[in-house]
């Protein structure tokens, strides 16, 4: 083995690639599924502004896409009173801080994900926020810190400098989307935005005042009218809905999509659609990885077989010095197993490096992490498959060793 470094390296390399790819796929697939399952629990339906249902799901449930738009609060509240609806959690988002989204909601939202308070308490007043564990760690936020949100989801947006949020609580790690969110009350989000609207309006009004000094009586009316307008225009971005029974599951989306200005999207359906699209890619990659593994098995076989031709004499020599057939068969098997095992180990290491790189990429782009260094149970199966390939590849050489004609080999040498 040492005397034929290139063929051995080739075998190990091929196996590394095969095992690495499969392990990486298994991990990524499992992590994504896990995250998706975790984040979708308790949500039967997402109601939001009309647009792409996939986008609505991705933005409202997973917080990785831009929102589709806003829906009227009145309409959302009307829906919450619908007998088919068990509960509806309003979400208002669109602002962020250092790339982490600020979501206005009510106390049902952390409850939905079983997120417990690690430090502090939940928000009580407007502009009080609770941060997810990952956000707290990454941004080094602790209780009592203040910050201002940015309009939009990237860091370059306008900051709402006049309003600063106060951190009153930090959540425990829950392995769900809430870890990467900053949550606050719906009113906080309104306040930040309305104040801005108000300022703009006030400026406009100032201009008006210049021209309309005389209309003093109207002013008060005007202001109250404006306030009224504000009340009417209260909006949320989406509503996470839990349906009471299966009939509601069928009726409710139809009703919402046909009779209202909103759309209802079913996460399970959209996620299945997404997986359907992704699945083709995953299947192709696993097939390629499997082919690589088979080729590596072939390479191990050829390497062992050629090695045996060169070493037939040594094998006969060892037999003549007292080695039994089984000892030599075991020797050949060991070599095959050693090659496949080292291929497996380096494959797993490769997959972890890949996972780490991918995780880094996901972290910067979506704030989702994949990193998990533990050994998965399906990777034990991969080990079994790898060793099986090793045994299969050494089988024919082993049989040859077993049937080796010592006398002839020694005489021919």
């Amino acid at each position, binding site marked *: 083995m040492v005397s034929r470094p290139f063929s051995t390296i080739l075998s190990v390399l091929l196996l590394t690639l095969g095992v690495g790819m499969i392990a990486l796929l298994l991990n990524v697939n499992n992590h994504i599924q896990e995250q998706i399952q975790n984040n979708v629990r308790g949500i039967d339906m997402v109601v939001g502004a009309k647009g792409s249902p996939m986008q609505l799901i991705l933005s409202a449930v997973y917080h990785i896409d831009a929102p589709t738009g806003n829906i009227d609060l009145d309409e959302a509240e009307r829906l919450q009173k619908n007998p088919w609806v068990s509960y509806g959690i309003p979400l208002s988002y669109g602002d962020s801080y250092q790339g982490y989204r600020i979501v206005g909601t009510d106390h049902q939202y952390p409850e939905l994900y079983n997120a417990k308070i690690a430090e502090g308490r939940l928000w009580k007043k407007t502009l009080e926020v609770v941060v997810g564990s990952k956000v707290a760690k990454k941004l080094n936020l602790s209780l009592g810190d203040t910050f201002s949100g940015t309009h939009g989801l990237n860091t370059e947006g306008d900051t709402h400098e006049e309003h600063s949020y106060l951190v009153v609580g930090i959540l425990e790690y829950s392995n769900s989307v809430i870890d990467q969110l900053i949550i606050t009350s719906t009113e906080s989000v309104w306040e930040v935005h309305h104040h801005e609207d108000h300022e703009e309006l006030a400026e406009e009004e100032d201009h008006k005042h210049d021209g309309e000094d005389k209309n003093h009586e109207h002013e008060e009316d005007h202001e109250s009218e404006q306030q009224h307008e504000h009340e009417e225009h209260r909006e949320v971005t989406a509503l996470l809905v839990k349906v009471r029974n299966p009939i509601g599951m069928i009726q409710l989306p139809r009703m919402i999509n046909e009779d209202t200005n909103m759309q209802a999207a079913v996460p399970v359906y959209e996620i299945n659609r997404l997986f359907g699209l992704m699945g083709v890619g995953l299947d192709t990659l696993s097939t390629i990885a499997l082919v690589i593994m088979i080729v590596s098995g072939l390479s191990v076989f050829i390497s062992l077989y050629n090695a045996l031709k060169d070493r037939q004499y040594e094998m006969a020599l060892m037999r*003549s010095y007292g080695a039994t057939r089984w000892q030599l068969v075991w020797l050949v098997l060991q070599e095959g197993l050693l090659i496949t095992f080292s291929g497996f180990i380096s494959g797993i290491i490769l997959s972890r490096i890949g996972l780490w790189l991918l995780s880094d990429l996901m972290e910067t782009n979506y704030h989702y992490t994949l990193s998990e260094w533990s050994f998965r149970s399906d990777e034990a199966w991969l080990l079994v498959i790898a060793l099986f390939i090793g045994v299969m590849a050494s089988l024919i050489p082993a049989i040859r060793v077993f049937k080796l004609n010592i006398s002839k080999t020694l005489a021919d040498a």
Partner: protein
Amino acid sequence: MLRTRSLFFAYNEHTKFQFPDIELVESDHLLVLGESGIGKTTLLHLMAGLLKPTSGTITIMDTSILELSSAELDRFRGKCIGLIFQRPHFISALNLYENLAMVQYLAGKKQNKKRIQEVLDSLGILHKKNEKPHRLSQGEQQRAAIALAVINSPKFILADEPTSSLDNQNCARVASLLKEQASGTGSKLIIITHDQRLKDQFQNTLTL
């Protein structure tokens, strides 16, 4: 100690050998002389249990080796018989010392460093013990091959043409080395050769 009776071996219809009976009872070493193609190597392989005869019996130390199972025979050979082949061969990945340790291991013995040192020293190649076998000179290889054969102090040392490729001087030296090593471990030598030069060195000869 070693006895063969009506040994017959056939590779195929045209190549078959009938060997005379051999009896070695506590006497001296044995030199078996014969021309090429007469089945010398075949006889050696038969006696070492590397080949099974078509008919006949071989008894070594009261053991009928043809009745042993394959694994038993391998063990028996490892313990009782040391083999020296026409051209020296080693396990090329291991150095000289490791080759000897390997042979000890294969015979089911514990690694005995002192014995390895002793054998190498007596053959004058102790300073080469960390060399790979193929780096040794031809004479050193020849001596290393003797070391492999005697390391386990076997009852019999079977040598196949150990001197045919050597000049007169070296031929005599190898012959005396073999005898020296054999008497050192109390082994009996059985040398099979066509080399007439060895005739003077051994009293007990058999011509095929």
